[in-house]
């Protein structure tokens, strides 16, 4: 039994015939081949699957793809614009905000959303915003610094896509 699930991802329209039970993260990774978003748990705790749905971060392992039918999704692959890295991406490089890189896409998607709504967050607000996501490598310090860097360099367009 399959249904047609169509959505816009990073500005491009897709449609696939899938089982209704297919989770959104698997639609993104396995159907569309966008493997930048990850999964790491069974209980919606780790946040490595965070993408945007209608401009709000969501743990995409906790939604059916069918629920996103007709909606817009944004993933880490859509952070860059016109070959330019988002300040969040550049901030993570500048401040060593990633080590293994597994939690990073999810962290950056949340960071981008936070900065869109609170362009100048303090450390406490940043820690609160990412408190639903686990990192096993960084001890969070440099993630916080990376997001602060992105807040401080918002107006610039640092970096070029190589």
């Amino acid at each position, binding site marked *: *039994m399959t*249904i047609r699930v169509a959505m816009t991802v990073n500005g491009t329209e897709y449609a696939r015939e899938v*089982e*209704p*039970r297919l*989770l959104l*993260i*698997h639609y993104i990774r396995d159907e569309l081949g966008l493997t930048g978003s990850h*999964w*790491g*748990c*069974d*209980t*919606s*705790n780790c*946040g490595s699957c*965070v993408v945007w749905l209608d401009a*709000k*971060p*969501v*743990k995409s*392992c*906790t*939604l*059916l793809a*069918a*629920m996103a*039918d007709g909606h817009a999704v944004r993933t880490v692959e859509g952070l860059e614009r016109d070959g330019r890295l988002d300040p969040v991406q550049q901030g993570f490089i500048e401040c060593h905000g990633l080590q293994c890189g597994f939690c990073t896409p999810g962290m950056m998607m*949340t960071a981008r959303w936070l900065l869109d709504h609170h362009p100048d967050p303090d450390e406490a607000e940043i820690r*609160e*915003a990412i*408190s*639903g*996501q686990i990192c096993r490598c960084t001890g969070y310090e440099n993630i916080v610094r990376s997001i602060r860097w992105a807040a401080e360099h918002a107006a610039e367009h640092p970096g070029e896509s190589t």
Partner: protein
Amino acid sequence: MQVPSQVEYERATSVEHALSLLSRPETRVVAGGHSLIPMMKLRLAQPELLVDINGLAELAFIALDGGQLRIGALARHADLLDSDLAGRYFPIFRDAERVVADPIVRLWGTVGGSLCQADPSEDLSAAFAAARATAVIKTPDGERTVPVREFHLGPYETVIGRGELLAEIRVPVRPGTGSAYEKVSRRVGDWSVAAAGAVLCLAGQQIQEAGLGLTAVGAEHFVAAEAEDFLRGRAADEESFAAAGAIAAGHCDPVADQRGPEDFKRHLVAELTTRALRRAAARAGSAG
């Protein structure tokens, strides 16, 4: 990652449409999905049909109307947390929402979904019970109301029948009311070891009405009824609060688990009830 078993999916285009879809057996509502889908992934829930009600915008509101705070079942946790309206009249909801899950889950999980999941550790169940709220349920014939204190039949079981849908929760507003919620968990986002919510209606320093909700300690209908009875008419002072806490601790049924042994949970009931009462009274003092 674990994945659900086979299920059918329909999207409701109206409340009536939802009700008719829900008349099928083995059918569940999916709103935020953040209670149900995790259970489906673990295959603890295996509905045959999911009815997606996210499109029913008329169920997503927070409003003050006729002396009541009205919260639509599709209000997201983040909406309730950020609502100045709700926060002004019932800071207990803000206190509770701040400690429900995490900031991303709160963007999607709904107030109605949490109440209907009926987890014995659900913070909102105790908060609404403390506030003596009423659940409004849409039925094929119209609607019916059920006090939140009668809404839960047991763990993961509510009074909502087949073909029915929780539409909103109404909370009566009274002058002189203060409220607060206190929770202890092992880590941010974890379910409560224990939690207590207090809604106090004061006249001067006297307690006109007390609502006490308890989470995760097996309190019947999430309520500390004996402690409420004790408080009614008494002075809103430390002695009353401590005594109420002790009574609440003696009238619940906590079970030992990895969050804590029974004696600790009972102790927390006393401690958190007292703290919630203290803060509720202070807020009543500064409320209109």
